[in-house]
C-alpha cells in the first residue's frame, strides 16, 4: 500500500509573512485535522508516546480526532499537558513524538504537533476549558518564575488542592513563552488563553515580584509550606571578545525582549525602540538564533546572516524553524566562527571578523567538533550583531540566596526528588539545566509537583 502523504500545513507566503508578526502556519481546518488523524495506524505499541517527555496519550487523542470527538480529544490532551496549544507549536517534534512514529521511516510521520495545536485551538474558539474545582488541602506553595516548568507545577499542585502563588519578576507571565518566542511562532492570544486557565483554577499570579530582590526569600520560607524555584536561564552569554561594547551589538535576549515582551515592532505606537540595521549577523544556530534572525528580517533588515561554526545539519534548532528561516531568505554561513567585532569612530559596529572552521573528531555531545583554521580570517560587513550563544541561569535570585547550592556554572543542584539542599525548597526547568526545551521544563515541573506533594503529606 502506498503511504498516504501528510496533509500539508497551509502557511503564510514567505514574501508576505516577513512583513508581519502573525502566525506562519495557518493551522489545520477540522477536515484537514480529521484526514491527518485518519492516517494514524493506531499501532499496538504506539512508539510515538515513548518520544513524548510527558507521555501524552498520543494514539488515543489522535483516534478521537479521527472520530471528530474534538472535545474529548482536548480533555485527554490536557490530562498530561497543561499547555498543549503551545507545545504543539514549539516542541522539537522531529526529535520527540514524531521522530518515534513508525511512519517516520517513510518520511511522513503523523503531524502530531499540529494536530494537538488544532485541538487546543478548537477548544479555545469554543471557550472550552477543563473545569476542575480542587478540594482545598490547606497547603501553601510558592512558585518562583512563570515559565513552562512553573505553569505545569502550579496546575498539578492546584489540582491536588494546594494554594499556589506564582511570583514573576516581569510585568507579564509566561517566561520564555512571553518574552522570548516571537508571536509568529506562538501567537500571544494562545499564550494568554493558556495562562488564563491558571487563574481560572485559582492559581494566584503575582507579577513584578522579583524574589531575592523585592520579595524576601526568607519571608517566602516562613509563609509557605514548600517553594518551587523555576527562575529559568535568561542571563545572556557574551563572547567576551573585542568590540562587544559597540552600539548595534545585542544579546539575543535583549533583541527578543524588546521585540516580543515590549512590542518594539509596533514602535512608535508602543514606546520601546529597537535599532535593527540592514545587514544583520546572528551568531549561533539554535531556536534563539532562528527567532532573532526572523525578527530582524521582519524589522526590515535586507540581509540577515546566520553565522555558525558547524553545519546546519548539526544545528540544535527545530527543523521547521530552519526551513522557515530559509524560505524567508535568511542566509546560512556555515563552518565559520567569530573572532572580534569592528566599529567606527562613533562607536557603532561596522563588521565582524570571522575565521573558517573544520571538523576534527567529536565533542562531548557527540557532534563533530569544529576547530578554527589558522590564517583563514576574513571580515564581513554588518551593522547589527545579535549574539545567540545561549544563556546561563538567572543569577539575580541566586546571588541573593547564597545558601542555595549550585554548580560552578550556575545551575541549581537538586536531589532525585528535585529538592535543593534547603529542605522544602524544590527547583526545576532551565534553572537546573541551563537551557533545554519547553516540554522538558514541563516534564520537570510535573515530577517536582509529585515530589512536593509527597513532601507536604509526609
Amino acid at each position: 500500500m502506498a503511504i498516504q502523504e501528510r496533509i500539508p500545513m497551509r502557511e503564510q507566503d514567505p514574501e508576505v509573512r516577513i512583513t508581519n508578526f502573525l502566525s506562519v502556519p495557518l493551522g489545520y481546518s477540522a477536515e484537514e485535522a480529521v484526514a491527518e488523524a485518519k492516517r494514524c495506524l493506531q499501532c499496538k505499541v504506539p512508539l510515538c508516546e515513548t518520544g513524548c517527555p510527558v507521555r501524552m496519550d498520543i494514539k488515543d487523542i489522535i483516534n478521537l480526532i479521527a472520530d471528530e470527538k474534538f472535545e474529548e480529544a482536548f480533555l485527554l490532551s490536557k490530562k498530561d499537558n497543561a499547555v498543549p496549544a503551545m507545545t504543539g507549536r514549539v516542541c522539537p517534534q522531529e526529535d520527540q513524538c514524531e521522530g518515534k512514529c513508525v511512519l517516520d521511516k517513510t518520511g511522513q510521520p503523523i503531524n502530531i504537533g499540529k494536530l494537538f495545536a488544532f485541538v487546543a485551538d478548537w477548544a479555545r474558539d469554543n471557550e472550552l476549558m477543563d473545569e476542575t474545582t480542587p478540594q482545598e488541602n490547606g497547603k501553601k506553595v510558592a512558585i518562583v518564575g512563570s515559565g513552562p516548568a512553573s505553569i505545569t507545577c502550579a496546575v498539578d499542585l492546584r489540582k491536588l488542592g494546594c494554594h499556589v502563588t506564582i511570583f514573576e519578576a516581569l510585568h507579564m507571565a509566561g517566561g520564555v513563552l512571553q518574552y522570548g518566542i516571537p508571536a509568529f511562532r506562538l501567537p500571544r492570544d494562545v499564550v494568554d488563553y493558556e495562562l488564563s486557565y491558571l487563574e481560572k483554577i485559582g492559581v494566584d499570579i503575582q507579577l513584578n515580584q522579583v524574589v531575592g530582590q523585592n520579595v524576601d526569600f526568607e519571608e517566602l520560607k516562613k509563609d509557605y509550606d514548600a517553594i518551587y524555584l523555576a527562575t529559568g536561564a535568561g542571563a545572556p552569554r557574551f563572547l567576551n571578545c573585542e568590540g562587544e561594547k559597540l552600539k548595534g551589538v545585542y544579546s539575543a535576549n535583549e533583541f527578543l525582549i524588546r521585540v516580543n515582551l515590549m512590542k518594539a515592532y509596533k514602535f512608535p505606537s508602543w514606546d520601546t525602540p529597537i535599532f535593527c540595521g540592514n545587514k544583520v549577523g546572528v551568531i549561533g544556530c539554535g531556536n534563539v538564533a532562528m527567532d532573532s534572525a526572523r525578527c530582524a528580517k521582519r524589522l526590515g533588515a535586507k540581509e540577515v546572516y546566520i553565522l555558525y561554526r558547524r553545519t546546519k545539519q548539526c544545528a540544535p534548532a527545530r527543523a521547521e524553524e530552519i526551513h522557515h528561516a530559509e524560505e524567508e531568505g535568511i542566509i546560512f554561513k556555515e563552518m565559520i566562527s567569530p573572532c572580534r567585532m569592528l566599529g567606527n569612530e562613533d562607536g557603532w559596529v561596522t563588521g565582524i571578523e570571522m575565521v573558517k572552521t573544520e571538523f576534527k573528531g567529536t565533542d562531548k555531545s557527540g557532534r563533530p567538533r569544529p576547530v578554527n583554521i589558522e590564517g583563514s580570517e576574513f571580515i564581513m560587513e554588518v551593522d547589527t550583531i545579535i549574539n545567540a550563544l545561549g544563556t546561563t541561569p538567572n543569577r539575580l535570585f541566586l546571588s541573593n540566596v547564597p545558601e542555595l547550592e549550585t554548580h560552578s556554572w550556575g545551575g541549581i543542584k537538586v536531589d532525585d526528588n528535585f529538592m535543593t539542599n534547603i529542605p522544602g525548597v524544590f527547583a526545576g526547568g532551565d534553572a537546573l539545566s541551563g537551557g533545554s526545551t519547553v516540554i522538558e521544563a514541563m516534564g520537570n515541573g510535573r515530577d517536582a509537583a509529585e515530589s512536593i506533594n509527597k513532601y507536604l503529606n509526609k
Partner: protein
Amino acid sequence: MKHTITRKEDLNAADYVIDVIAPKVAKKFRPGNFAVLITRSNGERIPMSIEKAEGDKITMYIKRLGKTSRELDTWNVGDALYKVIGPMGTPPPLKKYGTVVFASDLVCGHAENNAMCRELKKIEGNHVISIQSFPTKEDVYPEKERAKKDADEYILATGDGSVGRKGHMIDVLQELLEERKIDMVFAGGDIPALQKLSELTKKYNVPVMTTVRQIMVDATGMCGSCRVFIDGEQKLACIDGPMFDGHKVDWEAAISRLAMFKGKEAEAMECYNEKMKAVV
C-alpha cells in the same frame, strides 16, 4: 495595585517631582535603589532613582527629556501609573566611611544625593558633605528638595555663580580634596562629568562610587543592554549596580552606549509632538 500620583510639583523648568503609591517598593527601599516605571500598558520600562520612601509612597525626581518623561508631566495628582516595580539595584553599603562626600549635578544624582546623605548621616563616625550643582539660580531646587538638612555640611554651587559657590560639582570637590582629608566620594549625574570626577578622585587617591546610568530594558539581569565594563569585566548595571567603582569603569563605552537609541528617541518624540498637536 493602583499606583496613584499623590503629589506633583516642579523642581525647576526642566525637572519635576512626583510621589506615587507603591507600598511594596517603599517597604524594601534602600538609598541607591531605583524603581522601574511603566506608565501605560504599551509603555517602556524606564528606570528612575528613588529619592525617598515614606509610608506607602515613593518620591522620584524626573527630567522632562523624551516621550515618556514629557507625557508623564501632563498627568496630574490622582492619575495612576500602570506599573511601579522595585526597588531594583544593589546599593553601596551604608556604613561608617569617615568624611564622606556626595556630589551631584543632575536630576537622578540629586535624588540619590538626598537619599544617601540622609542615611549616611545617621551612622556614627560619618561626616557627610553634600555638593549639589545647578547651571544657574533659576535651576536650583526648592530647599526642601535638596540635601541641605540631610548633610553635616552642604555646598550649593551654580555654574555662573548666581547663587552659592561658582562652578560645577567637580570644581567644588577639587577644592575640598585640596583642603582636607576625604575618605570616600559618591557621585551621581551627568555621565561625562562623572568620568572627570572619577579621574579627579584618582589623582587624590580617594575611592569613588558613581552611578553608571545605562539603557535598561528588563532591569532584572536578562538582557545585557545595561552592560558596563569594570576593569575589563562585564557587569550589569541593573543588578550589580547602578553604582560602581568610578576608577574601574570603562567610561568611553558607557558614554557611547547611552546614545544607542538617539535616533529612535527623536522619532518617538516627533510622533508624540504630532499627537499632542492633534489633541490641541
